[in-house]
Each structure stands twice: as C-alpha cells, then as structure tokens.
C-alpha cells in the first residue's frame, strides 16, 4: 500500500440556514414587479389609476379568469394538461343562458346542471386519458372541440341575454369593500386550493403523481384515481368559472369564453415562478392574473393602442419569467 501525500482541508461546513434572502426574493419577485407597475402608473395617473374604484374594478372583472386558472392548475400539478377548460366554462355559462334565461328554469336547478356539465366533461377527459392511455393534450383538445360543437348546437349559435338578476347580483353587483363578490369567491377558492395542495396529504399526492407516476404507484398511491379526480375537479371549477362568467355578463354567448384558454395557461405558468417557485400554486396564479391585468389597464387608461396591450402581455410574460429565472441562477424549471 502506497500512501500518497495527505491533504489537510477542513470538513465542509454544515448546510446554511434555510431562510435566505435570495429565496425570498425569488418568491416575491413578481409581487415586486406588480407593485412597481402600480407605482409607475400611479405616478403617471395619480387620480384615475390610484382610485379605489379602479382597483375594485380590476379585482372584480378578472375573477372569472382567476377561477379558470385555478381549475387548470390542478391537472397541471398532477402532470396533465386540460385544454378543455375554456370550453367547459363556455358550456356552463351557455347552459345557464339556455335553461335559466331562455327556458325559464329556476336558478338552483340551472346551477346544478351547469356544474354537473363540468363534472361530465372532466370525467370524459379522464376516461379517454386513463382508459385508453392517450396523452392529455390531444384528449382535452378533442373533447374541448366537441364541447364547442355542443355549445353551438344548444345555443343555435345565439347569444342569450337575460340571465337571472339574482345571479348577476351575487356575482358582480353586491360588493364588499367596494369590490364585487366574485373577487372574494375567487380568493376563497384560491385559499382552499392553496390549503389543499400545501397542507393536506391529498394535495401532496397530486404533486407526487405529477412528478413521478411510476414511483407514486409503487408507493401505493392510486395514480389513476388521483388523475381522474383532478380532471373532474378541473372540470367542475371551470364550470364554476362559467357560472361567474354568466353572472358577470348577464348573458351567454357561444364563443367569447374560449378566448380565455391561453391567458389562463399563461397565468398558470407565470404563477409557477412565484410564491412557491417551481410548483403550480394558487396564489401565484392569482398574482399573475392581476399583474398582467394591471399592466393592461394602466396602458389602456393611458390611451395606448390595442396592439400595445399584446406587446405588453407577451413581453411581460417572458420578461417576468426570465427575471425570476435570473434570480434563481437560471436553474431549469421542472414542473412535471
């Protein structure tokens, strides 16, 4: 045995304490960017932009998008895409239009049917994804398109107005601190989802399934059941977003809701860079929606052209994520 020269290096120090500034910076970077936007627009338009009415309007009017985003982050967490969310939303609001406004059903049975439609769509998605083992992207794209067809059919392509005023009141007219109730429903839902994902075993199982299907199965997690439930919950929440949509517009039309799909995905992914970076999370999604809408609102108030909104939206999305990546030293994001 030949002993080579020995080195004398002290042992590596124990791991540093956990709460570090950088990590906190990463978590709250987007919140900071949001505040910055508010300050800038506030300086430019101290009267109109900084009014409580402006904020209450912003908060209230984006509740639908927030709810839809909250819906899709659930399958995203368990590793599936739900591209049918916007179609479910539109279906649910159209059912309210058809049953309540056109055919004169009472509000309660109408809402039950509307939410049930979300459950059914979620179940159909789950069936095709899980029984046939098809990629969720293609199933939900197909099912979404099919549902769009159903919507056109039941609505005869018409916009239907005259949704029960009591729904409208409970969504957008009645207020707390001047903010329409819809905002608080969305916030409540975000809190519930946050709690479930963070503080219950069920929520963490969702995350486990999303990060490793085989490993989860090996550990006794009923993976298929978890994925099916997450599709169904996503469907029901999207249908709930549809209820709020009908309540907000007081009407239902067969197409406009579909435009919320990409904004919802954008908010979900942007939200995953904040609060709990690297995980789809409820309050991250909420903040992303309001960050983006604050920019758009400010620009509109300044009288910017429509295209500027697109420039801001696309630019802000990419830049915000890029900055948050800089903060975390450009480690690759792993969501699923």
């Amino acid at each position, binding site marked *: *045995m030949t002993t080579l020269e020995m080195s004398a290096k002290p042992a590596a120090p124990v791991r540093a304490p956990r709460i570090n500034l950088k990590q906190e910076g990463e978590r709250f970077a987007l919140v900071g960017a949001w505040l910055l936007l508010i300050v800038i627009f506030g300086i430019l338009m101290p009267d109109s932009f900084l009014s409580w009415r402006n904020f209450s309007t912003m908060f209230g009017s984006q509740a639908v998008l927030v709810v839809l985003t909250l819906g899709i982050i659930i399958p995203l967490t368990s590793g599936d895409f739900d591209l049918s969310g916007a179609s479910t939303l539109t279906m649910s609001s159209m059912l309210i239009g058809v049953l309540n406004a056109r055919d004169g059903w009472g509000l309660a049975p109408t809402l039950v049917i509307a939410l049930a439609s979300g459950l059914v769509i979620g179940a159909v998605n789950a069936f095709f994804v899980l029984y046939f083992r098809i990629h969720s992207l293609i199933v939900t794209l197909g099912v979404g398109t099919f549902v769009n067809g159903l919507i056109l059919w039941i609505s005869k392509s018409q916009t239907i107005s005259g949704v029960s005023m009591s729904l409208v009141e409970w969504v957008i007219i009645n207020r707390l601190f001047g903010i329409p109730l819809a905002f608080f429903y969305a916030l409540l839902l975000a809190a519930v989802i946050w709690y479930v994902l963070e503080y219950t075993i069920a929520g963490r199982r969702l995350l486990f399934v999303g990060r490793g299907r085989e490993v989860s199965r*090996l550990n006794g997690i009923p993976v298929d059941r978890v994925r099916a439930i997450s599709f169904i919950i996503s469907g029901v929440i999207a249908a709930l977003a549809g209820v709020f949509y009908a309540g907000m517009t007081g009407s239902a039309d067969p197409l406009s809701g579909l435009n919320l799909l990409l904004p919802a995905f954008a908010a979900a992914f942007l939200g995953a860079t904040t609060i709990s970076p690297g995980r789809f999370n409820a309050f991250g999604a909420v903040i992303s929606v309001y960050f983006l809408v604050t920019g758009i609102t400010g620009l509109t108030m300044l009288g910017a052209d429509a295209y500027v909104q697109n420039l801001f939206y696309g630019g802000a999305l990419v830049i915000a994520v890029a900055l948050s990546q800089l903060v975390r030293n450009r480690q690759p994001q792993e969501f699923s």
Partner: protein
Amino acid sequence: MSDNAVLHLNNIRMRFGNFQALKGVSLSIRRGEVFGLLGQNGSGKSTLIKVLAGFHQPEEGSEVILWGQTMPLPLNQMEIKKRGVAFVHQHLGLIASLTVVENMRVTALGTRTPWFVNWRREAKRVAEQFAAFGLSIDPFATIAQLSPVERAFVAIVRAFEDLKASDAGYGGEGILVLDEPTPFLPAEDVKRLFGLIRSIVASGASVVIVTHDIDEVREITDRVAVLRDGELVDILETKVTERQAILDTIVGSRIDAFAKARGVEARPPAVTVTGIAMGRAAPFDLSIGEGETLGVTGLIGSGFASLPYALFGAVRATGNMVLDGRSIDLSRLTPAAAQALGLALLPGDRLGAAGVGSLSVTDNITLPVLPDHRGLLGLDRPGMLRTAGHLSELHDVRPRRPELPLGSLSGGNQQKVLLAKWLQTKPRLLLLDEPTQGVDFGARQQIFSALDRAARDGTAILCASTDNEQLEQICDRILVFARGRPVVELRGAEITRKAITEACFYSESQTAEAAE
C-alpha cells in the same frame, strides 16, 4: 411449511404480455428470520416483491397469506402496508424533485391528520427519526440534493416508520422487505444497516432482502430462496451451505469468477492528467497507462465518483490532460470534444444518463458511430440493425432483438448494450462509473471479460466504483480517495477486497486527523 410462518406466498404466477415472469413460486417467511431472495437479473425477484406489495396483480390461483389470513385478489396496496409489510423498492421509490419530508410523509402510513399537515412539525419528527439512526439529513432538502447513500437511508427509514405505524408494528412485528438496498451503500453503512436488521429481527419482525452480494447473503440471512427464470429453484439454509454452492444454484451451472491476468510491467502512459481539481478540493495529478485498468474508490462523498465525469467534460473541473501528445484544458472540455478525442464515458445511471429506454437497442448502440453508417442515400438503416445484431451477439445480449426498446431489456442486458456501444468505438480511454451495479453474477463476468479484451487491445480504463469485489477482479491499480483527492495507491498483488476496504477507512481517518 413451517408453523411460525408469518407470510405464505403460494403458487404466485405473474405474466407481462406473453412473458411469464413468475411461474408459480411458493415460499414462506418465518417469524424473526432474515430471508434472502437470490437470482440472476430478471429471474423475478423484484416482480415477486412487487406482487407482494400489490403493485402487480398476479394471475388467478396465486395466493398471499399474511398472518394466517388470505388476502383477497386483487391485492390492495394500502391494506398490505397497514398490516405491517413495509418496502424499500429497488430504485427506492423517491421523487427526486421533492423534499425529504414530503417523500417521508406523503406515502407513509400513520400521518395522523391527513387534512392538516404541519410541515414544520413533521420535519422535526423526521429529523428526530433520522437522529435515532445517527443520521443528519436536512428534511427540507430535495432528494436530488442528497448523496446516493442518504437517499437510500431516507427510503429505509421510511420503511421502518411504516412498519412501526402499521397494525403489526404495534406488536413489534411486521415484515420489512428490502430490494437491493446495498448497492448504494459503502461497506461501513452496509454494516450499520445489518446491525439495524438484526435489532429489528430480534424484536420479532422478519426481513426479506434481495441482493447480488453473496458475502452479504452469508453474513445476514438465515435462509435464502433462489429464483431462476421465474421459478423457485431451491431454499437453502445459509449456515450450512457453501458460498460456491449458493452461486451454483443461482446460475444453474458452474461459473468461475473472472480472473484477470495482472501485468506488472510498466506501461507507457496513455493519459496524463495534471492539476485536476473538482469542486473545492486541492488539485492532484494522475496518469493511466495504455491497456491499464485503473480503479478509483473511496467512501461515498470522498470525491472519486465525479472523476470519470470530470475527465469527460461532463462536470465542471479545472486542470490539464495530455492525450496522444495533445494537451487539453479540462475547464473547456465538452462531452462532444471528449468523444472526438477518443474518450468514452459509461455513466452509472443507466436509463437516466447512459441510454434512452424508449428508443430501440439499435438506435442506442449506433449513436456514437452514426457517421460510419452514412451511405449514399443517408443513414443505412438495415446496416445499423445488422451492426446492432452483431454487437448483441458479441456481448451475449438477450434477447437478441435489437429492434426492441432498450427499456424492455433486463438491467444486466441494458448494461451490456451500453458497454458494447462504447467498446465498438475502440476508445483510447474508457471511463466507467459503477459498470456492474445491480448486475448479476454471470453477466458481471461477461462484462469483465469484455473490458479485459478492450484493455488488451490498448484501451486505458478508469473505473469508479465502491464495489470492492469488482475492483479486485478487474483493476491493475487502484487509487483510494479521501476528501476529494487520491491518498492511497494499491497495485498488483496488494489489491484485495480486504485491503481496499481498509484503505478506504484508513485514509479517511488519516485525513480527518491531519485536518485537525
């Protein structure tokens, strides 16, 4: 069948598609014994364990009797867990991107309030559990941040906790099932693990352990069952059976261990590395002769494991390497450049870093030699298939169907394919990281002789491993690392399993003293 059996497995049959993985295996585990499960790769050990875990559903007629009660088919995973059978699966069953405490708790039994989890408190409890085993692992670190040993410990501790939380656990009983827990562990930790196993067996629980290491088998088990091709061949009392007899039973016929003809003559250096430094360790020099097989080893964390990656430009390192008279700056080296220089790296993580499981054997095996398969009309696909077929034959890859996805081969065969991939390029320097981890005895000997052939053709080989038996069998020279640099060199006749083990601990304690 013995009277005090806690678990009977009767006539377990399991099929994947039209492949019969288990052909009616029957065995029983007694209270308070350590039961070994042996067999070549793919003989069905993990499958049997996964059937017991309820992960795979066996065919009709199979019977699992736990504490005298027949478990209804399909088996319910949670039910089995609750009744006191806890598992450490072959690949540990941990999610790398999640934290230790999440991995410990989410799938564990006995989380008292599933509707409210206080993660801080759970982390404290987890830390206490680790402390009871003398471990200090940060509960909030992600699994990916841990070393392989620490990961193994997380999985093992989790299984212990499951056992304690189960119905049977309250009575101090239960069955702990370990599927190859030791390849990750250095000798010292294997000892600790065995100490642990003995202590729980003493409390009345039973342990089932799968391993390819015959010495471990002889040290810890009371009885062993040997599987071959999905059938139970024999059940042996360890105490009264010879080492060679066990080996022969596993293989089904006699296989002699590969023995290297070690040359002692000085060889011209193929590669000379000067001033290499990885991480914060001080720089050192190193050279490997033509046709020489150099082993690098040490305790886990001593820094030898990243050496092959550093020389290939796959991890950050500084220093200089001279190869064929050319001088290469390691800090600028990329894997592509290294490959162009005639280097080859076989990473330890078979399907995560070495090959793609969803692509065919042909695709994987021809990747580094694609330029040779260029014809007038682009890649010669039939030619590639032929090449893959020849290589499969040369290295005895089974089944010899190169169009199958790599992932559907058994671990040993995957390893043969990946080794064949690099050997066909006739590399100047072949860098290996645990080349036979989890590979059965017979396949190992085949891999060793293939390596030896390459060495005799002039390839210099660097093999990083903690498997002392393997190092003894193939190395001409061994460097033992401590604190990021080589501290002991063994050569020629000095190389024995025992000497390597001693060197590892000796060097570690010496460097630790020197540091004080």
